[in-house]
């Protein structure tokens, strides 16, 4: 297949065309492969996505129908295994789409549309499960414990303290996203896939050095070296942020 500049150049995809593009353009050329390999694609919306959102904000039914066609399959695949019932999963997909429209005035265009939709779907799912027997039985087994319950210490604090905590958390999260994103982008750009997999196993999966080494078929010493280097780099980033007046 001839390289057409990769999927970022395309503005709107009917579902079928998008699938063909997704399944074939990936191996078209190294240059474009690198372009959309970056986490920027995941973390920041493509320009076409922003145009898409603008059309939906302008109440364009065709754009809305296209959005549904593009995203309904992955949302259904996200929800159905968890609720184990097709009709309920479809209802939750429906609620996700209407939830998206309700949230549209507050949607930050710098966010990824897919991430936003998954976040809405996860919230709808949690609401559904809260109403479901699963949470009730967990409550019964743990003397009133509930996932959604705000801990006692938090409830004892005043609203302004809680708001301060939220604001602090948002700032810390944004800083970590920037720092981690930069470090992980560097690994991707250098095609250091085993190192990336190793760090993900350690820091996201919570695997021990020995387990990560076994999974990846590398030495424990190599895992330890990569872990130490990553932690040192993060520390340096955080120290630099502090020097710039960012509290963390």
């Amino acid at each position, binding site marked *: 297949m001839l390289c057409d500049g990769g999927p970022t150049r395309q503005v709107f995809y009917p579902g079928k065309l998008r699938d063909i593009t997704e399944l074939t353009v990936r191996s078209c050329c190294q240059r474009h492969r690198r372009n959309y390999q970056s986490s920027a694609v995941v973390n920041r919306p493509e320009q076409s996505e922003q145009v898409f959102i603008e059309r939906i904000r302008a*109440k364009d039914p065709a754009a809305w129908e296209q959005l549904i066609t593009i995203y309904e399959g992955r949302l259904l695949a996200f929800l159905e295994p968890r609720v184990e019932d097709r009709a309920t999963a479809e209802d939750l997909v429906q609620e996700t789409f209407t939830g998206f429209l309700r949230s549209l005035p507050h949607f930050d265009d710098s966010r990824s549309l897919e991430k936003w939709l998954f976040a809405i779907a996860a919230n709808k799912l949690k609401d559904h499960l809260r109403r479901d027997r699963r949470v009730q039985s967990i409550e019964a087994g743990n003397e009133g414990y509930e996932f959604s319950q705000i801990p006692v210490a938090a409830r004892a604090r005043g609203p302004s303290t809680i708001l301060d905590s939220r604001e602090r958390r948002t700032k810390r999260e944004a800083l970590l996203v920037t720092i981690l994103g930069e470090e992980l982008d560097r690994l991707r750009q250098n095609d250091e896939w085993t190192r990336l997999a190793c760090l993900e196993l350690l820091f996201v999966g919570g695997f021990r050095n020995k387990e990560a080494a076994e999974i990846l078929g590398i030495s424990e010493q190599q895992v330890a070296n990569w872990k130490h280097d990553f932690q040192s780099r993060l520390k340096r980033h955080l120290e630099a942020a502090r020097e710039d007046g960012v509290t963390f």
Partner: protein
Amino acid sequence: MGSQKAEIRLEELEAFLDEALPATRMREIEEAIRQDRNLAEQLRLIIQRRDSGAVSIAEVWRRHRLSCPTRETLGAYLLDTLPTEEARFVRVHLERVGCRYCLANLADLQSRMEASQEQKEAAQRRCLRYFRSSLHHLTHSGDP
């Protein structure tokens, strides 16, 4: 993933709170919480820590999908056209880290690839139903 049953790691509890683990693992953790008060206490402490403004690397990394392959990469993974090392990264991401978002994308890509005519028509009908029932919300979105 059999060995994971024996141990629930702190990072998984974080992901559990965000509905970010595969469905089977979510159910295993739910069951474990019902039976283990210590685990429930750990979960409560995570919520409390988040509430006080703290963030963890695991939580931010997973929630912001900082190492998720793109959908195009997942498509290439399905077609087995990725270089070996990158394909192994994707496999670890899906099978060991258990990224629920990427698993959903992969399942969707696979079902679209393998869909029969009847299944394609069913998907079209579903989309039409979503569209029709949400049209009212579209035309009133942003209204005060």
